[in-house]
């Protein structure tokens, strides 16, 4: 009994102490993460954004985060907890948090929500995303140029527009430089499971792929490619530079810091409104990691030219003529895709084999 009462006393004391430390004038910003902050990929970069907010505003802002929150009812519980805990602004950083975010936002009209990569908005819910497909286009060009077996392996997470867009974008550029290229797509049905991602990469390599593109968050596929020896990979979400200069020859880097700082500032100033932000390479939300010397210099030059034309807007990653997988026309010659179609993309472009899981 004594131990129990001591423990109870200690818990109470801790609670009182932490309660006393909270300052009511601080703006409290919450983050809900889908993976651990140490995943080296997606969540790692969101956490860098959180740290940037802290560095920018110092004591005026308090940030809280919960990591490895499953997409589903658990997420709703975590968000409710954060809102009840006095958060003024909550970033929910995965597609699967869309409905939970909407549900919780309806219950807390005074709390601002920001949902990453989704498409549902409300008066107190903004959405934001990055045009990762622009980065995928650059990867596709390098992949198509560097594959010798003409088989490119692609590890998908979930069949959502975000991922399908990436596959299409990469394929279009790969096909443009290498008409014989073939994409083998494996759906892992997870954002983060290193063992499964390693397995998927190994399977793709065993089936002849010598370039692996991943849309999952851990560095495990990089390690699998490294073990295989002659397989090219790209960093996903984070630079993953520790696997350079080979197998990792380039990467897509998410840079959320400017956006997080701007939105936090808006809440502090009272100027926050519900918006839909979709920025790409040009705005700096998507970065292309260093293209290493393992890439032939002419390919590197072409990739950098593509990157720059995407950045200044002179070229769109989805420029016609492009047909859908079933052969029907999608984009006419010179026509570019509108954001609405891209945001809800649920079809492959012509040439990709296999079906999208429904």
């Amino acid at each position, binding site marked *: 009994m004594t131990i129990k009462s001591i423990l109870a006393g200690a818990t109470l004391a801790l609670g009182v102490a932490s309660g006393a430390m909270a300052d009511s004038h601080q703006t409290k910003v919450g983050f809900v993460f889908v993976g651990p902050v140490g995943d*080296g990929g997606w969540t790692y970069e969101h956490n860098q954004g959180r740290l940037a907010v802290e560095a920018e505003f110092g004591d005026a802002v308090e940030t809280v985060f919960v990591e490895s929150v499953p997409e589903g009812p658990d997420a709703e519980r975590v968000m409710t907890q954060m809102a009840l805990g006095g958060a003024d602004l909550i970033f929910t950083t995965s597609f699967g948090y869309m409905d939970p975010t909407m549900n919780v936002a309806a219950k807390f009209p005074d709390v601002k929500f920001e949902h990453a990569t989704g498409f549902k908005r409300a008066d107190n819910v903004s959405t934001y995303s990055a045009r990762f497909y622009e980065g995928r286009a650059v990867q596709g060009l390098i992949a198509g140029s560097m594959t010798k077996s003409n088989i490119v392996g692609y590890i998908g997470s979930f*069949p959502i527009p975000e991922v399908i867009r990436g596959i299409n974008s990469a394929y279009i550029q790969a096909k443009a430089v290498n008409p014989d290229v073939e994409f083998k797509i494996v759906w892992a049905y997870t954002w983060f*499971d290193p063992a499964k991602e390693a*397995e998927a990469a190994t399977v793709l390599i*065993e*089936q*002849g792929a010598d370039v692996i593109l991943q849309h999952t968050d851990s560095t*495990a596929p990089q390690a699998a490619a490294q073990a295989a020896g002659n397989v090219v990979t790209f960093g996903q979400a984070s630079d993953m530079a520790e696997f350079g200069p080979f197998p990792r020859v380039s990467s897509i880097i998410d840079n959320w810091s400017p956006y997080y700082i701007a939105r936090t500032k808006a809440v502090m100033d009272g100027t926050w409104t519900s918006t839909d932000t979709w920025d790409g390479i040009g705005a700096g939300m998507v970065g292309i990691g260093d293209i290493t010397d393992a890439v032939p210099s002419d390919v590197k030059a072409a990739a950098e030219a593509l990157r720059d034309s995407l950045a200044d807007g002179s070229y769109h990653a989805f420029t016609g003529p492009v047909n859908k997988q079933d052969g029907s026309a999608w984009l006419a010659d010179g026509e570019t895709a509108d954001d609405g179609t891209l945001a809800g993309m649920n079809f492959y472009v012509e040439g990709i084999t296999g079906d999208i*899981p*429904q």
Partner: protein
Amino acid sequence: MDLSSINPILLLASLMVAATPILLAAIGELVVERAGVLNLGVEGMMITGAVCGFMVAVSTGSPWLGFIGAAVGGAILALLFGILTQVLLSNQVATGLALTLFGLGLSALMGQNYIGMKAPSFPDWHIPLFGDIPIIGPIVFQHDPMVYVGLILVAAAWWFLHKTRAGLVLRAVGENHDAAHALGYKVVRVRILAIMFGGACAGLGGAYLSLVRVPQWTEGMTAGAGWIALAIVVFAGWKPWRLVLGAYLFGGVTVLQLNLQAAGLAIPVEYLSMSPYLATIVVLVIMSAGRAPGSLGRIFHASR
């Protein structure tokens, strides 16, 4: 669809690798449950083993020392569970769940400086003579040593449980701890030893992920493997050899479904993704589950 792109030899070979972490964790938990203790902390012990093994392997350069470190790390965490449940008589289910949460947090803390580092390589064994047999050689006899350690552990656990006096005592403690106590056996001591063995095995399973299969350290890298191991123990009816079947089946279908996807099979991916779980449950249920140890999960105190 192009099934010819699947190489059955590579498929069967990667099956053994995919099953090993689950097998290692499950055989430890099986012994624990046969001693009458339900430790739901397998996931936590696995991930702790994964980080301990990785840290030791990186700092010493020896994967073997890494595995020893993983076993020790897992056993220490399990000892904590043992003290709480056997000495302080806490609820086993709650303590086990807490152990998982604690293990996940502790491992994240311990591994902070090890993210992105590379593990020393752990080469495959090419067993002389056997490894040269066509077809069977590459499937069975050309793996890294831990694959065989896992199988040897299962054999040893079976032999221990069924052929030794100490194993009989352990099973007696698990079936009816009051009777075992009345006969003069040290229930608490037997259970704590079993729990530590379980922790060591889970640690090995975790380290297999961080040192061989992935091989690097990332937070939360076990991603539920511990829960699969727990489920397989139950579905295998607490029998060691069925455990091997369950683990290989699970590993096999996991690898097979990825292969089928890559080959472009016209079955919806959702069904392929659920297939490992379904196949394992169906087969082990059809084989009819065994009976749970009589004292499983019950708190023992000599005065009651």
